[in-house]
């Protein structure tokens, strides 16, 4: 387990934790990233898309950028293909730029966990294995299928073996399929934090701790909203102590802002709960969580050269592609513009 990962009741940072120092070996790659960052979609373009009267107009807003479609084409499938291509390209670039193979493997493990989650859910509930798996992980989906069929988990890398064992154990305790997700989420968080500590990357460690905190905020609010009897799904390893989230499950909505006042997530909880109470929707919480994470990634601008610049670009680009997909999907399904704006603003 990482050495310095104490939960914090007093935070040593006001808004964002530190992103680490320069690593001049990444100078050329960082310069490329800084140039490519200029091609990221501006807020204006996203707002134009969200405010567009229909799907075609939203697609037309992308015409000047790298997501431009061939002349006359405005089908959702075409946009989808372009977006998936761009996402694959940026992941390939990331793997090329990163000098530390362990960081590449760490980010590829996201796909391993997603594939494993899908495969285990299907295997444990006796459904067909399916073919909708990501090919971008460290382990091919066919091998995952083979291992699960044989029940020979030793063929998995240690993190996947641990996740599988804990998920299977959790599932068979009361045949609750949610236990698979809880187990995989916790093992994934532990794996990321342990690897970040092993690589000795301050940036990655802080990034993953933020991700754990943001996941816990979402989980806490969902559990409260659903008035769920069980209190599972909170992840250990973030900056905020788990006890605070458990208290949040017990307190009234009006006390949540106060509870998180001393944390950097005060605004997310405060504004998110207000929106949730008035609109019965998690849109604002999701938007604020994204905004906080992107803000942290943007703070890598203070680093001239280093792996954090490249990681931040990968995550910002993935976020941009996700946002474009989200807006276009909403437009295609004729969702209200205000809802879209609440989610992406």
């Amino acid at each position: 387990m990482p050495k310095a990962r104490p939960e914090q009741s007093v935070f040593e940072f006001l808004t964002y934790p530190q992103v680490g120092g320069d690593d001049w070996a990444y100078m050329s790659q960082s310069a490329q990233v800084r140039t490519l960052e200029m091609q990221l979609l501006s807020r204006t373009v996203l707002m134009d898309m969200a405010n567009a009267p229909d799907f075609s107009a939203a697609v037309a807003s992308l015409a000047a950028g790298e997501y431009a479609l061939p002349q006359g084409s405005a089908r959702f499938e075409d946009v989808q293909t372009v977006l998936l291509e761009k996402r694959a390209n940026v992941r390939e670039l990331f793997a090329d730029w990163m000098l530390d193979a362990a960081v590449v493997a760490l980010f590829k493990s996201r796909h391993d966990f997603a594939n494993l989650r899908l495969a285990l859910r299907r295997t444990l509930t006796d459904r067909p294995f399916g073919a909708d798996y990501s090919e971008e992980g460290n382990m091919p989906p066919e091998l995952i299928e083979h291992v699960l069929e044989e029940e020979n988990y030793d063929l998995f890398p240690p993190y996947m073996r641990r996740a599988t064992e804990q998920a299977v154990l959790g599932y068979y305790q009361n045949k609750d399929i949610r236990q698979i997700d809880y187990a995989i989420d916790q093992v994934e968080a532990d794996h990321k934090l342990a690897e970040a500590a092993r690589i000795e990357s301050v940036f990655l460690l802080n990034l993953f701790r933020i991700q754990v905190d943001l996941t816990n905020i979402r989980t806490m609010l969902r559990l409260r909203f659903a008035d769920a009897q069980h209190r599972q799904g909170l992840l250990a390893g973030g900056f905020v102590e788990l006890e605070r989230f458990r208290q949040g499950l017990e307190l009234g909505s009006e006390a949540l802002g106060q509870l998180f006042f001393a944390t950097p997530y005060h605004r997310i909880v405060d504004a998110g709960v207000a929106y949730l109470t008035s609109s019965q929707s998690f849109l604002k919480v999701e938007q604020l969580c994204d905004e906080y994470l992107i803000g942290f990634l943007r703070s890598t601008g203070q680093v001239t050269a280093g792996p954090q610049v490249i990681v931040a670009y990968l995550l910002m680009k993935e976020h941009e592609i996700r946002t474009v997909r989200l807006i276009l999907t909403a437009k295609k399904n004729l969702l209200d513009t205000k809802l879209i704006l609440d989610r992406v603003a």
Partner: protein
Amino acid sequence: MDYGMALALLGAGLAAFLAGIGSAFGISIAGRAATGVLSEKPERYGQMFVMVVLPGTQGFYGFLGAFIVMLQMNFFGGGLAQEVGIKLGLQILASCLPVGIAGLFSAIQQGKVCAGGILMAAKRPEMAFKAGVVYAVMVEIYAILGLLVTLFILWFGIKWPEFATAAAGA
């Protein structure tokens, strides 16, 4: 054996070697930044060039320091007429250190400043001179101070024996 001569040559060598190493590192840092930007924006070559070559000046300062030592010792005028002596050798060695050490560190740091300037120029070309070159020149000042100290010591701080001036005059 003329230990004084060995010390003097060590000084001249250090001046050129340390400052040269610094320049090589500095240029490599700035150069890598420039290649990264140029891979996406080749039209920015002219702006990048100045910032890539700036850390190279320290290498020339080191060479200049070493060259003046050699000149004072009549290297190019038929050699020396007498032994240098340990005292003079140490004086020459000491005189070479300012330009060598200042050149070594300032060139590396200047390379980093130039790299930052290159990244700035990639996003905001109008800031290339203001933020890139001007800040880099501020670092350059300290290399120049190192060179000046070396030159002042060599010209005014050391009492050169007759052989140098006599040979140079001849």
